[in-house]
């Protein structure tokens, strides 16, 4: 006798709870579902017994059909079919006279039974099918969402390892189990190059991962090959090559993925592989371009440097050998001139070598040693260093007293000023005045070096800061590194530098140094 031990299905929460539990313990399938089916049929029977005195027996069949609907909307097909059969039996037993037997007094009830059974089965079938479709739709939606999330995360990455890391993270969230991606090092899967910090898989499985990588077929736990491995290994196969292996470990309770998740996992692996492949080829292209640029740089550097190094060396050698060979025959004035040129050319050589070294250091990513300085001190030190070149020139310095401290590397910013001031002295007529001025701007300090030289040609503003670019001014010699160094240093400080024409003739070099950049 079916007696209502279980709560009535009216209690939705309880049912959902039961269902969730059934989901969790997927293996010992559905004794709960059968119990629920029996309970609902029992409930229908109770209601029918209560209504029996007032209604015709055929109408009581409707109560049972409602019960079948209730079961079908919640339980598997088998449970609903069971409920259908039970309902017909219970209907016969309790509602069709003679009561409490399976015998039937009037044969027309056989038609009722047949109809009821047919309707109940159709309801079970349809309801479960609709439910399955709805579930699939939900699954598909969550898959789409998961894949979308993955592709968004992947598109933000520019490095192979970061792509792998992002993919592993998203996979862990979506599948709820630990995921590690192994990347190859020269064709070998390396357990050292992996995305997760702790190694949950023994290194003994490295060979399985390697095989998966070599053959491009899944293996490991739940697969045909290496079934007793600790993890499932998915090949990460891009459009043209293998890029790594994804290992999926069982979740906290040891469960593996459902079939629908397995499909999603395949898609995950493919998308990840494509992203990694794309990053790899992007990097390869970048490297090739950089190598080309480096090569070009090197050859132009060589030609510029060899010329600039040789010229002063030639003057020095020439002057020195003249002095040695013909020293006593030369007029004192000529001797002084030769000595002067030796000294000047040597200084020029020294500056050039200094610039080359600075440039090299800056380009190899020199570290800034920043601290807060009064700009006045840096300007003062630069002027002090240039004292010999500045004799006979007026230098007007206008630095407001309330100027905020700037957060800079004093030696490097000093170098910028030295280069700018030196440039100004080289390009402007001897004796013409220079101006150095600074002012506070919102969030920055703006510093200007102004001269009364010929300025620069229109369209030259940007090129001035390129390496080895020399202004068109005649009679000025230099390697074209000074302003390039200035720009490199200012940019390293997150500032900007620009050249502007000056009203009334001359050039202005303007540096903006942001104040908020903390060390």
């Amino acid at each position, binding site marked *: 006798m079916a007696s209502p031990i279980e709560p009535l299905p009216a209690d939705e929460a309880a049912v959902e709870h039961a269902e969730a539990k059934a989901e969790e313990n997927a293996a010992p399938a559905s004794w709960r579902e059968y119990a629920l089916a029996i309970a609902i049929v029992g409930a229908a029977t109770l209601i029918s017994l209560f209504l029996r005195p007032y209604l015709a027996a055929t109408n009581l069949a409707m109560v049972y059909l409602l019960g079948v609907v209730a079961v079908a909307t919640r339980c598997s097909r088998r449970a609903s079919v069971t409920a259908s059969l039970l309902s017909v039996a219970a209907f016969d037993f309790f509602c069709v006279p003679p009561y409490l037997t399976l015998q039937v007094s009037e044969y027309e009830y056989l038609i009722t039974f047949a109809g009821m059974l047919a309707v109940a089965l159709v309801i079970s079938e349809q309801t479960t099918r609709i439910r399955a479709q709805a579930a699939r739709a939900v699954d598909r939606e969550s898959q789409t969402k998961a894949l979308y999330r993955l592709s968004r995360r992947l598109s933000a990455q520019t490095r192979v390892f970061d792509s792998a890391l992002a993919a592993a993270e998203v996979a862990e969230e979506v599948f709820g189990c630990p995921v590690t991606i192994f990347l190859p090092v020269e064709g070998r899967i390396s357990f050292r190059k992996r995305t997760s910090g702790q190694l949950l898989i023994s290194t003994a499985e490295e060979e399985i991962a390697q095989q998966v990588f070599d053959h491009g077929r899944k293996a490991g736990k739940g697969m045909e090959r290496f079934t007793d491995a600790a993890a499932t290994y998915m090949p990460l196969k891009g459009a043209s090559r293998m890029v790594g292996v994804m290992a999926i470990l069982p979740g906290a309770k040891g469960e593996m993925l459902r079939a629908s998740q397995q499909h999603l996992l395949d898609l995950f692996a493919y998308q990840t592989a494509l992203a990694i492949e794309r990053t790899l080829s992007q990097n390869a292209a970048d490297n090739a371009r950089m190598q080309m640029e480096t090569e070009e740089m090197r050859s132009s550097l060589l030609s510029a440097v060899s010329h600039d190094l040789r010229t002063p060396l030639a003057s020095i050698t020439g002057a020195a050998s003249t002095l040695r060979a013909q020293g006593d025959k030369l007029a004192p004035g000529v001797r002084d001139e030769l000595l002067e040129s030796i000294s000047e050319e040597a200084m020029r050589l020294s500056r050039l070598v*200094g610039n080359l070294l600075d440039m090299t*250091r800056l380009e190899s990513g020199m570290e800034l040693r920043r*601290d807060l300085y*009064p700009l006045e*001190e840096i300007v*003062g030190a630069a002027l002090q260093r240039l004292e010999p070149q500045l004799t006979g020139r007026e230098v007007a310095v206008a630095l407001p007293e309330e100027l905020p401290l700037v957060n800079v590397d004093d030696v490097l910013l000093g170098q910028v000023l030295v280069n700018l001031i030196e440039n100004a002295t080289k390009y402007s007529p001897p004796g013409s005045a220079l101006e150095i001025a600074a002012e506070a701007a919102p969030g920055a300090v703006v510093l200007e070096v102004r001269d009364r030289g010929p300025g620069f040609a229109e369209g030259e503003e940007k090129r001035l800061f390129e390496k080895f670019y020399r202004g068109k001014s005649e009679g000025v010699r230099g390697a074209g590194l000074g302003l390039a160094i200035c720009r490199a240093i200012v940019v390293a400080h997150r500032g900007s530098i620009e050249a502007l024409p000056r009203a009334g003739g001359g050039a202005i070099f303007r540096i903006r140094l942001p104040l908020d950049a903390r060390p």
Partner: protein
Amino acid sequence: MKPLVLVIEDDPQIRRFLRATLAAEDYQFYEAVTAAEGIAQAAARQPDLVLLDLGLPDRDGLEVIREIRLWSQMPIVVLSARGQEKDKIAALDLGADDYVAKPFAVGELLARIRAALRRAAPLAQDGIDNVIRFGDVQADFEKRLITVGGHEVHLTPNEYKLLQVLIKYAGRVVTQRQLLNEVWGPQHTEQSQYLRVYVAQLRRKLERDPARPRYLQTEPGVGYRLHVER
């Protein structure tokens, strides 16, 4: 008596030019090519001053300073390359008196040598000198009176102390750490921003144009030097 200078330098060309310069200035001159030889010579000859190159073939020049300082306070002037601020600071903190960056002009080198020799002269004269003059600045430490061009200037206690320390090392570069240590105390040696702010204030009070200081000169990345024209 001619002052005795020991040159520890491995490059023969630089030794040659130093020899010529020092001879012309009437110094006695000894040479050492390696660190080991330099230390031995310093001990044997007891020179009045050591000119030390930091890039020696056998050992780091810094070790030479460390070793000499174990037993002597003889002035040491270091020859170093530009851009090697770290080395300069290390040399000064180990007890070197000053440095000259290569390539240098002879005038600069001789000025450094003279300043270093002057400081090494018997302390009795320097230490108790209570009135110091440089340019139009006069500092009377007995009366705690500082005047610029005859006008009294008021210094805060820290500015006064800072000036005192700079005068004590006049003509010589003093590292930021050294200044912070002597003015504010050993627990403040990392707070170089304060130092820079105080130097800026002192310049405003002593210099005609603080952006082109005549006396309180900056050695970028290293420290300060009170430039005293004599």
